[in-house]
């Protein structure tokens, strides 16, 4: 970073509040999403054309977080996660995610955040649940 003027506005470790549910806008899953995603993965499994690949809602949920009315999280590294499917997702479904920071741990280089995220369909049913571990930057000293 060459100067403070270039620094993008971000949500730093200090700004993250524990226990506050963040609900994103929704996104409707289309055959175009499925085709693009299958092109990226190269998954050769033949599927029902309206079945959504299992990992696609998870990938889309990372972008849904960017549409929250807050500055984007200053993620330094995505460390890992546990994920499970609770229900099927089909083309035509509209999903959004609900996230909650359940733990914050300060580290020398930044801080670790544990986030629980549910991916929810248009009927309010949880279809996937994820527990993510993220390394987030501290606010730079002015």
């Amino acid at each position, binding site marked *: 970073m060459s100067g403070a003027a270039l620094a993008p506005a971000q949500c730093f470790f200090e700004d993250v509040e524990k226990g506050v549910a963040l609900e994103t806008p929704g996104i409707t899953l289309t055959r175009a999403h499925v085709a693009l995603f299958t092109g990226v993965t190269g998954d*050769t499994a033949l599927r029902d054309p309206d079945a959504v690949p299992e990992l696609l809602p998870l990938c889309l949920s990372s972008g849904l977080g*960017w549409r929250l009315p807050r500055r984007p999280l200053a993620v330094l590294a995505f460390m890992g996660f546990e994920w499970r499917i609770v229900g099927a997702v089909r083309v035509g479904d509209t999903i959004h995610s609900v996230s909650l920071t359940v733990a914050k741990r300060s580290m020398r280089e930044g801080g670790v955040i544990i986030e629980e995220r549910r991916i929810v369909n248009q009927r309010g049913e949880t279809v996937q649940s994820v527990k993510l571990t993220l390394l987030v930057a501290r606010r730079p000293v002015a």
Partner: protein
Amino acid sequence: MLSFGLVDAQPPVFFEELSVGQEFTSPGRTVTEADIVIFAGLSGDYNVLHTDAEHMKSSIFGERIAHGLLGLSIQQGLASRGEPAAAHGVLSALKWKFKGPIKIGDTVHVLSRIAGKRDGPDAGRGLVTVERRLVNQRGEVVQEGETEHVVERRKP
């Protein structure tokens, strides 16, 4: 019926035919700038880690890196070309760790090992757990974890 890339001429494998300890190696795939651009557009994740080459010059990585979930997605496709075609082998859960960056031009492949088998959601299906490692051209494990699949049992 699912069919998997290089082995798609073979009949699907049922739960009974998979055994703990079996190992598989996938083909390799070179991760390109285009993969990262498409994944950013598809997912909507435009983090500077993946999209701002100038910003990343001064980062610990020195350049843009692939989204962790892009590496996972590429891994899923590679594994489908390396592991046997499981009858209706739906991915149902995973535990995953990101160990190191994937940079533009890196070539990755997947090493898989069947780690466990147990009863599934009903009498007709079992659960298979697979340990998978995503390895780069220098032999470094960049991602690893365990995937769980629902696999059909052979009809009696």
